[in-house]
């Protein structure tokens, strides 16, 4: 459990949380029709900053993405007395595509952006980037909860941000997921999402201990205002292990995430469930089924995509903040775009603003790669799960010696593969893993590398199968740069504009963890983090903190990176927890 110290939303609807909240209470929307935008052949509807807003938000020496992150974090910080330079303060950045427009330069790399933002804010610790597709914003907050509760840091600045561009919109259009009309979450007439852009910040602190506060703020009877004083109680992340793009029809992963989050919690305390509600046909349908199966059919739903569009990396942060504000006022904001339910799961959604009671809410997100996250927020503090567990990593070290993989030390089992061996992942797949998984050839290089390493890890450790709660936690530096270059070539080739849907999917690096989950039927947590470098201590810290608070006992974890088809590296271990 961690406490909200301050928030900010920087969006086309305003530059502070208060401005945003007032705007949407007044019925404003950022959505507008974009015709001929970025020379895209198809018209779409999106929530974008205007050119005037962009000019006023721009910062010299920074990309627009970095500028809105800095402005959002700085405005949130201005309401606190945090010593950001402390070694106990950390920046966690949530984004799906970050500076993808800078592809081909050093600025492309997400950890580069995070470091530049952290430096500008005056922070001194290494920032962590969460690239977990559409659930990134909640994954980032869960990471903050774990790192703070685990005692690794005292304060976390969680920034979620997305800036739209031709690359992202063309990709979602190739998946036939974008609507040319304002989106209609859960509605009978819904026909797709609207891309949106924003930056949103929540500054969290660990309750009871706040040495970073130069002046102690009163914790007792703290007045809730614009999110301040709320608690992130707990949350859970679960994978469908069904398909990388299509959600489980029964909502299995989301249901499991909700159940793990709500364990021991009284449903009647919930003022609302803040849904993902992107307005895609299958996404909303799946979410409604999971909500009914979780026994939440009578809790009023909040759906905010009709105001901002799908702000992707920002969504989990932005929508949590707005829901805090609305719950403080005892209301559920009218779900703009919704008129008549068009989902099979029984839900409680009203087209107009309604009153609600309760001092807590549940926030849900689901995304490509089969990931689903639920997070529980409350105005009253409650203790989180105990942290008595000890993490053991029985790492394995296996070296490639003259074409044969051999165990070097049975107590420390790590599988390491790299391009230095001269073998491609396809060579390893053909020669050493038994094959029989044709989908392997559809994967990009990053996923192939992680996939064969996981196969070898299973083989070398003599693991026939993994428990279905096993998590898959991967780290990398280069994100999905190879697939990003490939996808860019499909939309900027001299031969024409033919965005490839199957390439676009792999521009989300967390597809790697999704593929491993599907292969081994793993329904546990799946997350992809981007770090500035292969910092083993930091990786261990994140996995340890996640295992302590993540309610799972085993994980496949490690480093995977592919800079191009011939320059890759992967090092995986099985992490275990013992009590």
């Amino acid at each position, binding site marked *: 459990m961690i406490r909200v110290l301050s928030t900010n939303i920087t969006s086309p609807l305003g530059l502070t949380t208060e401005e945003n909240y007032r705007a949407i209470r007044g019925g404003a929307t950022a959505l507008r029709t974009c015709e001929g935008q970025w020379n895209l052949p198809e018209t779409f509807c999106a929530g974008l900053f205007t050119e005037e807003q962009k000019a006023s938000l721009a910062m010299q020496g920074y990309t627009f993405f970095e500028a809105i992150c800095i402005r959002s974090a700085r405005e949130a910080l201005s309401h606190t007395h945090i010593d950001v330079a402390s070694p106990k303060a950390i920046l966690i950045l949530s984004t799906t595509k970050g500076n993808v427009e800078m592809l081909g330069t050093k600025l492309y790399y997400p950890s580069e952006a995070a470091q530049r933002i952290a430096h500008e804010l005056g922070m001194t610790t290494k920032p962590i980037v969460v690239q977990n597709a559409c659930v990134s914003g909640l994954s980032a907050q869960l990471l903050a909860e774990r790192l703070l509760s685990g005692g690794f840091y005292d304060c976390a600045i969680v920034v979620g941000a997305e800036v739209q561009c031709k690359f992202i919109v063309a990709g979602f259009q*190739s*998946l*036939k997921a974008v609507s040319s009309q304002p989106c209609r979450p859960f509605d009978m007439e819904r026909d797709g999402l609207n891309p949106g852009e924003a930056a949103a910040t929540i500054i969290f602190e660990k309750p009871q201990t706040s040495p970073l506060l130069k002046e102690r703020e009163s914790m007792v009877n703290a007045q809730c205002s614009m999110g301040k004083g709320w608690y992130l109680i707990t949350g859970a992340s679960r994978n469908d292990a069904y*398909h*990388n*793009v*299509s959600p489980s029809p029964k909502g299995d992963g989301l249901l499991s995430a909700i159940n793990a989050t709500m364990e021991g919690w009284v449903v009647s305390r919930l003022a609302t469930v803040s849904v993902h509600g992107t307005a895609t046909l299958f996404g909303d349908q799946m979410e409604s089924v999971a909500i009914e199966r979780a026994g939440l059919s009578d809790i009023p739903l909040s759906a905010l995509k009709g105001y901002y569009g799908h702000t992707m990396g920002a969504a989990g942060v932005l929508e949590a903040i707005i829901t805090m504000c609305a719950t403080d006022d005892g209301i559920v904001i009218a779900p703009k775009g919704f008129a008549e339910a068009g989902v099979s799961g029984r839900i409680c959604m009203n087209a107009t603003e309604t009153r609600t009671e309760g001092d807590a809410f549940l926030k849900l997100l689901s995304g490509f790669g089969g990931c689903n996250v639920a997070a529980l927020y409350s105005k009253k503090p409650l203790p989180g799960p105990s942290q008595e567990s000890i993490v053991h990593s029985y790492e394995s070290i296996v070296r490639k010696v003259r074409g044969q993989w051999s165990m070097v030390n049975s107590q420390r089992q790590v599988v390491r593969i790299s391009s230095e061996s001269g073998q491609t992942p396809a060579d390893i797949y053909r020669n050493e893993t038994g*094959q029989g998984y*044709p989908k*392997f*050839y*559809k994967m990009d290089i990053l996923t192939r590398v992680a996939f064969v390493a996981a196969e070898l890890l299973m083989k070398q450790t003599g693991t026939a199968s993994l428990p279905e709660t096993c998590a898959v936690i991967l780290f990398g530096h280069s994100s999905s740069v190879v697939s990003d270059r490939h996808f860019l070539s499909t939309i900027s080739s001299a*031969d*024409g504009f*033919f*965005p*490839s*849907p*199957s390439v676009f*999917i792999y521009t989300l690096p967390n597809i790697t963890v999704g593929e491993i989950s599907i292969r081994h039927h793993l329904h546990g947590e799946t997350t992809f983090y981007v770090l500035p470098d292969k910092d083993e201590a930091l990786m261990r810290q994140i996995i340890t903190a996640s295992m302590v608070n993540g309610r799972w006992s085993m994980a496949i974890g490690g480093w995977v990176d592919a800079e191009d088809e011939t320059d890759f590296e992967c090092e995986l271990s099985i992490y275990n927890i013992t009590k």
Partner: protein
Amino acid sequence: MEQLINDLKVKIKEALNLEELAPQDFDADAPLFGEEGIGLDSIDVLELIVLLEREYGIRLSNPKEGKAIFKTVRTIAEYIKENEKK
């Protein structure tokens, strides 16, 4: 028609990365989807839509039409014959 079917098999194999399947391995009349087929999924349908546009100049704006068109290699070939831009 047979030439078009053979060309299509090669192009489909390449576009969908069906590495472990030789073009001659899939029957022109065998279903491409479902358990009896070669295991294509919803993303493959979208990729086939791109293939039709890129290779044959045929634009399929409604993916729902794809269900009938992409039933077998032969049904795709027939659709191309009917709609190919001269």
